């Protein structure tokens, strides 16, 4: 049934166009450091939005996200590094892998698929668990991934890490994928599947009584989340140009969970808001940590300031707004109705 595109669709397209224009201007004018931060915001949006699908919408409290990132990052690294470079750095690779060099988009898809596959393997036994049992089990997955990465030296160079990943990641890739991620996840959570996932979160027994296949829905959410985590991990690897098992540690997982909690774990908009705050704030605070002068006043070095402020922020938010900044609300154009009018006037 063909029909005219709705106002929301048009606005969405307009928003993407504005974002693209902003990225274009930033790429022309900003020094690399700021572009790097902008890219990290985008990567965090991808990672946290996908974490919110499992942790927020479906109520599977997973601490394994960094593990999926690792799977994605290593997959993409092994698929994109030029054969000549592999011969030097990874001489023990099996032949079929040593000779391969895929274009970036193909490597990203492979990264996501392999992360998804890992989620499928771990999901079958683990998703029967609930609450903190599930959280601990997914953390176990993270431990396994790190041990494998550290020990599978012929594939990963172990703890030394792989360096010289081609620096493919730029703001176009990052925000292209971020917008796509948000769009697809939004479609998913507003679909019948998504409603089912939310029903499972709210009341598993009632959802089961309504005929929702709990295990299958949870597995779908888990694997979808892992897919985007894998893609996000690959993007991060190709931004850093170096990856090692230490990159994908508990602190990485907890950073994502923190962003998710601050932004609001039951909302995709929350992922965006949280990523903006939690990526920008430490970088802004960095300017004050080293001491120096601010408006003519000499400041002593205050290293650790940003960690303390971020941790305090987390505590304050948990006390006063335990559902996070966005709660379960999503962005809608009506939220900005007044502001838009002001701009026009």
């Amino acid at each position, binding site marked *: 049934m063909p029909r005219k595109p709705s106002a929301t669709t048009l606005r969405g397209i307009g928003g993407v166009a504005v974002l693209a224009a902003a990225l274009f201007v930033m790429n022309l004018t900003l020094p690399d450091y700021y572009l790097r931060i902008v890219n990290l915001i985008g990567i965090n949006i991808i990672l946290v939005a996908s974490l919110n699908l499992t942790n927020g919408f479906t109520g599977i409290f997973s601490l394994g996200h960094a593990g999926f990132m690792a799977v994605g990052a290593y997959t993409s690294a092994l698929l994109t590094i030029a054969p000549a470079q592999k011969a030097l750095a990874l001489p023990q690779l099996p032949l079929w892998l040593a000779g391969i060099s895929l274009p970036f988009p193909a490597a990203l898809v492979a990264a996501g698929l392999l992360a998804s596959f890992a989620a499928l393997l771990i999901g079958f036994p683990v998703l029967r668990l609930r609450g903190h049992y599930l959280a601990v089990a997914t953390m176990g997955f993270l431990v396994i991934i790190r041990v494998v990465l550290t020990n599978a030296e012929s594939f990963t160079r172990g703890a030394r890490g792989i360096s*010289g990943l081609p620096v493919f990641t730029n703001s176009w890739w990052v925000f292209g994928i971020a917008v796509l991620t948000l769009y697809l996840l939004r479609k998913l959570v507003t679909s019948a599947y998504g409603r089912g996932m939310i029903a499972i979160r709210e009341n598993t027994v009632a959802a089961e009584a309504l005929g929702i296949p709990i295990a299958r829905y949870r597995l779908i959410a888990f694997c979808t989340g892992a897919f985007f985590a894998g893609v996000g991990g690959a993007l991060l690897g190709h931004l850093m140009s170096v990856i090692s098992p230490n*990159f994908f540690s508990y602190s990485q997982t907890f950073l994502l969970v923190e962003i998710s909690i601050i932004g609001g774990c039951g909302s995709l908009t929350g992922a965006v808001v949280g990523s903006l705050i939690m990526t920008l704030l430490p970088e802004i605070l960095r300017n004050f940590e080293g001491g120096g002068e601010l408006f003519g006043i000499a400041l002593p070095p205050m290293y650790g300031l940003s960690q303390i402020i971020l941790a305090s922020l987390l505590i304050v938010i948990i006390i006063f707004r335990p559902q996070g900044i966005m709660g379960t609300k999503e962005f809608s154009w009506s939220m900005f109705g007044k502001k838009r009018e002001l701009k026009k006037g």
Partner: protein
Amino acid sequence: MKAKVVMLGVLALAATLAVTGCAKKNNVIKIGALFNQTGDQSSLDVPGLNGFKLAADEINKAGGLLGKKLEIVAIDGKTDQTQCTNAASKMIDVDKVVAIGGLSDSNYALAAGAIAQAKGVPFVTSGATLPTLPDQVGDAFFLEPFGDNIQAYAGAEFAAKDLKAKTAYILTDKAMDYTITLSKYFKERFTKINGDKSVLLEDTYQTDDVDFSAQIGRLKNLKVQPDVLYVASDPSKCGVIVKQLRALKVKQPVIGGDGYDTPLLVSLGGDAANTGVYFSTHASLTNPADKVQNFVKAYNAAYKTAPENAFAALGYDTMYLIANAIKAGNSDKSADIKAALAKTDGLEGVTGKVSYKNGSRVPTKSVTILTVKDGKFDFVKEVLPE
């Protein structure tokens, strides 16, 4: 749909840029100091930065370089790879540093070094000792300290010759390049001296482990007990492991690398640290040489405390190494500093002489063996491994 929110963020970012944008000054030479001031690495990196700054102050008091003053841009790496790369990127793109010094662990130096390499800015690591690092990162990456192979050789030779050990046990932190490399080279040299079967058991743990009773149990189950224990650990674990070994009545001498050169060895190890613990490191601060004692005095005057460990001296030497290259190349351009660094030959420092020979960017330096006596580090001997 969320684009609007993203846009708002972009605006916020643009606003911060406007506020934090830096004014460029022409009469200074900016040098980046990238040290982990917080987190696990801070017990090495805080003294490192202190030493680095002290050297810059001395150079400025003596009139600066090329008629300009040095300005240190110090950013906290937070013991996190992403943060280290952000910091390196900020120093280069925003603060416009011409060279960077710092970091005491190869994991972080690898990540930050890649950023500097891509921009052609020389990076001198003050404490990371992985010998393959400069080759892995590129031609702008230099080591101020000796490589891990050298200090592990020194540890093995000290064990075999001075402690008369015929057999050894090796415990390695499996999650770190640093510790894996140490154990590998210790074994290589020790078995070369004492024969293939002289290493009785090799065991591993992960950095996050806190209980080592399983490893110690396996050690005690050996029918023949080893003469020495080589425990390759990072700064946060050496004290803990030594304490647990002694608590379970394992009495053999413990040998480690420069990760032990931290106040944590004594504060976490307690009395156990006094019972035959030896480690290889970069310098002894009790060394009576003028160069060393002047440094100790200056450090005391500046920070009201004695240098905490050799990393303070390494930070100090790193700044002088960069300064020497600026002077020798008579330029404060990154490319010239890089070229001049590569030609460094026989530069005397607190931690020994630095020369980069045959295109190598890892210096050959002597290794100092220290032990702990009454809770203080004590000089044992200096070893120049074969």
